[in-house]
């Protein structure tokens, strides 16, 4: 559905997106991760036809993004970072406006409006102006507006930035439903847990796409699981103190805090007992150690460290 090769965007001397290539299959949820300023928004804007690529090419539904944007526009929906709405219009008027913008009218327009109101549960707010809505409701309305014309591909730029956890959960439930109805979704985020839900993920770091693929495949990559190593989860008191001492232990390659526990990448020869001994020497007597599979975060840490080296 989306296919780009060597897509590059330069702003003067700054390269915002550097030779990015990837494919997104129809009906999949593609999650693009990366820190702020890594080029996520620039990439999404190029795909939506808002920015001209400096080099490279991209296709959406078989149409070239630089030359055939007129054919692409009716097929795609776009929800920008700020949930831009017309504040002085009511919820219903916003929906109708976006429908008309895509050429809907008459019964089809009214029908679509009703569907979107039901989908986003906007019934209580229909006659209220968009300016009075809170963050979560603004986001729902913005999404409903972007869906009025039934796009085949929906681009969402950080759709969960600044909204509460319940609204976040509900948004993802909706995205899964759209995907099972046949829509292709392209989502940018910097939440790892959201990335875990995507059918495909890409990680963009310093303008380059470092890695891209199925989360399970990525976790099985040799670069993530170097031969002769294992990943351990260590749960103990005083995690930060524990981290300091464990890091000094020979054979420990990386150690990162994860809430109440730490994730270690250690060489196969490092025994659980040696870790316990080290912790006990630092005054930590209770420690629960178990082997774990790598998380997506581990994947991205491993791969972006490799990319930097």
């Amino acid at each position, binding site marked *: 559905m989306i296919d780009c090769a060597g897509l590059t965007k330069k*702003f003067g001397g700054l390269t915002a997106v550097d030779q990015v290539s990837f494919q997104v299959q129809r009906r999949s949820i593609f999650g693009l991760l990366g820190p702020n300023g890594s080029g996520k928004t620039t990439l999404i*804007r190029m795909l*939506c*036809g*808002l*920015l*001209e690529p400096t080099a490279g090419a991209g296709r959406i539904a078989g149409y070239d993004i630089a030359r055939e944007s*007129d054919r692409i*526009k*009716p097929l*795609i929906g*776009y929800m*920008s*970072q*700020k949930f*831009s*709405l*017309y*504040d*002085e*219009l009511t919820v219903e*008027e916003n929906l109708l*406006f*976006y429908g*008309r*913008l*895509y*050429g809907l009218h008459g019964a089809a327009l009214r029908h679509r409006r009703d569907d979107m109101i039901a989908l986003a549960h906007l019934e209580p707010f229909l006659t209220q102006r968009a300016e009075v809505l809170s963050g979560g409701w603004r986001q729902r309305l913005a999404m409903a*507006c*972007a869906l009025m014309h039934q796009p085949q591909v929906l681009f969402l730029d950080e759709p969960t930035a600044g909204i509460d956890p319940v609204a976040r959960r509900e948004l993802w439930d909706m995205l899964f439903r759209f995907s099972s109805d046949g829509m292709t979704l392209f989502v940018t985020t910097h939440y790892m847990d959201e990335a875990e839900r995507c059918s495909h993920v890409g990680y963009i770091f310093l303008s380059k796409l470092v890695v891209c693929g199925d989360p399970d495949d990525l976790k099985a990559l040799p670069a993530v699981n170097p031969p002769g190593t294992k990943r351990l989860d260590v749960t103990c008191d005083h995690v930060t103190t524990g981290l300091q001492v464990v890091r000094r232990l020979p054979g420990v390659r990386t150690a990162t805090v994860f809430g109440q526990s730490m994730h270690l990448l250690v060489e196969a020869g490092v025994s659980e007992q040696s870790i316990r001994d080290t912790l006990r020497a630092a005054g930590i007597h209770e420690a629960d150690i178990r082997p774990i599979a790598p998380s997506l975060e581990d994947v991205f840490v491993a791969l972006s460290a490799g990319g930097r080296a």
Partner: protein
Amino acid sequence: MNPLRGFQAILRKEFLAVLRDRTTLFFMFFPPLVQIIAFGFALDTDVKHMALAVYDEDRTAESRQLVDAFVNTQTFRVVQRVHSLDELAALVRRGQVYAGLQIPPDFTRCLRAGRNAQVQVLIDGSNSTTALQALNTAMNIAFRRSLALLLEATGRRDLPVEVRPQVLYNPSLRAPNFFVPGVIGTALQIATVFSVAMAIVRERERGTLENLLVSPISRWGLMLGKLVPYLCIAMTMALFLFAILRWVFMVPIAGSPGALFVASLLYTFALASLGLLVSTRAANQNQAFQMVMTIMLPSIFFSGFIFPRETMPWIFYAISTVLPLTYFIELMRGIILRGTAITEFWRHLVILAVMGAVFFSLCALRFKKKLG
């Protein structure tokens, strides 16, 4: 593909948005109303009843007649009588009177003896309008008096040369009749250009422009949808202003309402297109504001609104020929005061229409459907 795609959606949305946005409406309607009323009443160059101080050293029937002659012109009213020349000069210096009249003690004697009788008039020249009027009136009185005496002496009953002026159009030479059409032009200009200039730049600032750009809307549809609502509001305002002209300032409208309508429509079209052009160029509302001011200021001075264009240095005259206001003011003076038929002004109308069409096409053609 439909070249006006998205026009209807933008049109309906923009109408709703403009009518809901009380602040914008207020700033569209209020300043022009204040402007027309302030200018109409205050910009009256027919100076009447200027304060005059009199130092009459003669105190005869003749000297009193002379003072009466000053008052009878309605240009002056006597506010104070003084008893020394210093006092007279002090009143002028302090700005308490516009002029001081000194009649010397030998005024009547000289007059009767047929000698040259002199009176002195002190005029405050710091305001050129009032000073000029005071000077003209004083000279006029002296001339009339002299003429009457000369005619009496020679026995002639009429003047050797007589000019019989007949002022066509605006016969009372009232200043409001001359100014208010120009005020309508500037008021429409401020309201229309400012509000339209914000139309697209506001969407850019809010981020909604991105949503428009990813949609299949056409450039012409977007621009026309933005233009038409403001054009309607500007025409409504023009109607208000003409009503004020007619029924508040009592300026008779000699020409046809149809001519006024066509002229105003073409003028507001040119203005709105100009505003739209600013809006597509500016990065934010502040920049749009500054760009509008840059266009607006020269138009106040060079359009012939206050100073006649014909006496301007060529560079200012050249500037005036590219200002829509210049043509609108000439049209309005023609239609309102002289009752000129619209066909006699076809050239002005064509120029306004071409300006509007060029600005509008520039908006649509040069508007990039991209960010950055």
